């Protein structure tokens, strides 16, 4: 009696959130799935089991190109961000006095809180032909003419790396700070040089942190519309950009849905690839 009442009460509390998620997340998701199997005939939407949209991916070069562009950019961003963030996290964890570490960390990620749109815009300013970087380059005499930096893949990658270095510094730092200082001491005690200590002990033990951050970076980067749109110019488009194009010009929801599903599939594959490290390791 009492147990039954309790369970009912539990359901009562859980219901609003569950209903919200079911109606406003699961259902739209299902609709999108169905939509990806639909077809646009002029202005009319025809439901059914059409695989035309998915076939288009192999037929239309620009769609396939977009997938490759997205992957290339995302992998580059992930690798570069890790290479820049790891030493930064290391310096904060092991060289900054413990009292100041929280503050330095906070300062490192403070620019997180410029609006995402605003931050990409700011990079546009920095990399513009008349912007600070070019002014510095021509001013110092390193180049004769301003270099085209904005509206290129370089700008997109820079914008992304800027964001993800902050994120990765956080995750890698959290991992580093957790390690008992005795691991380093024991390694050194047994004759390891600083580099050997890093290679054989610290790096393996921080791999979970790196991989978690890398996965997060991969997923967020590949699904992002803003940064490539503001900084990338129009010479090559990423998958999110192509999706938005389908929505805007032709209101081609079916194709947009199919592309979205493909994006999700890529993310799922990435998850399976990273799954090993995403489980909590025993340290």
């Amino acid at each position, binding site marked *: 009696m009492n147990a039954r009442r309790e369970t009912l009460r539990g359901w009562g509390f859980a219901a609003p959130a569950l209903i919200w998620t079911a109606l406003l997340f699961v259902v739209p*998701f299902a609709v999108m799935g169905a939509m990806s199997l639909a077809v646009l005939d002029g202005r009319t939407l025809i439901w059914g089991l059409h695989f035309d949209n998915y076939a288009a991916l192999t037929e239309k070069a620009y769609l396939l190109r977009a997938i490759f562009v997205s992957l290339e950019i995302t992998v580059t961003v992930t690798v570069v961000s890790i290479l820049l963030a790891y030493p930064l996290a290391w*310096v904060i964890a092991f060289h900054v006095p413990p009292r100041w570490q929280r503050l330095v960390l906070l300062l490192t990620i403070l620019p997180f809180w410029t*609006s995402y749109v605003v931050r990409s815009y700011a990079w546009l300013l920095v990399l513009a032909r008349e912007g600070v970087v070019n002014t510095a380059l021509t001013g110092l005499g390193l180049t004769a003419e301003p270099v085209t930096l904005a509206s290129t893949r370089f700008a997109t990658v820079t914008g992304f790396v800027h964001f993800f270095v902050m994120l990765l510094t956080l995750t890698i730092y959290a991992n580093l700070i957790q390690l008992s200082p005795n691991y380093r001491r024991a390694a050194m005690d047994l004759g390891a040089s600083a580099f050997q200590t890093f290679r054989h002990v610290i790096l393996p033990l921080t791999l979970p942190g790196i991989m978690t951050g890398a996965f997060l970076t991969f997923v967020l980067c590949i*699904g992002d519309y803003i940064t490539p749109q503001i900084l990338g110019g129009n010479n090559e488009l990423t998958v999110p950009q192509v999706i938005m194009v389908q929505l805007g010009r032709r209101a081609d929801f079916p194709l947009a849905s199919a592309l979205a599903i493909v994006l999700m599939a890529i993310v799922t594959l990435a998850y399976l690839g990273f799954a090993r490290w995403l489980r909590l390791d025993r340290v």
Partner: protein
Amino acid sequence: MMRLLPWLYLAAMFTFIYLPVGVLVLFSFQDGGLPVPPVEGLSLRWYADILTDRRLVDALTNSLIVAISSGAVAVVLGFCAAYALARHVLPGAALLRGLLIAPLTVSYLIVGLGLLMVMNRLGIGLSLWTAGIGHVVINLPICFAIIYASMGAQHKNAERAARDLGANEAQVVLLVTVPMLAPAILAAFFLSVTLSWDEFIIAFLLTRFDVTLPVEIWNLLRSGLSPRLNAVGSIVFLVSVTTVLVLELLVFRRRRS
């Protein structure tokens, strides 16, 4: 030289990280017409300009309204769900938890796209309400996760003690559970507000005439580079940072005592 290497690297990275923010704020005071070098004198006219811009001020207000209300809804729903799953034995609890967390795993673009299609089919007009709904969808998992993780055994015992002393369910929740979890609830709320405040793609897809600030900024971008955008960006930055500092003081100060 070797000893200085870590500090040089730190300085170099900080320069990289603060370059856009620095440029943003510096050139918001630009007296000239373009937010690029050289600095032609300092002036506050762009701030005056945007603060009198009807559309921007409206967008800012809209952002605040959407952020606070969607944050509030997300927190209440998240709290109730956390309370349900942490304090009651429900069949398939693991599945339910997974369902509630699921939206976190999907790109915001896809969440927005799905909702857009549903709204279209149902003939529901796009507005701040629809954007708010979308924000609740993405913030609910976060609120749930944060609050669920904070509901520990010691809280359970306090609740038992309250029931033992004669409190009914509503009283237990309102007078015991909520106050005990205040830090987590507030943290979840502020996090949701910050995320909603800054969110672009869902707001972009799901609003039409009344827009939020990020969308309005996006619209302004169409007209090219201008110190006006710098001024807007600087204000947005200031507001966000303040919220974070408030969060830091509220949550971490509390935890220390």
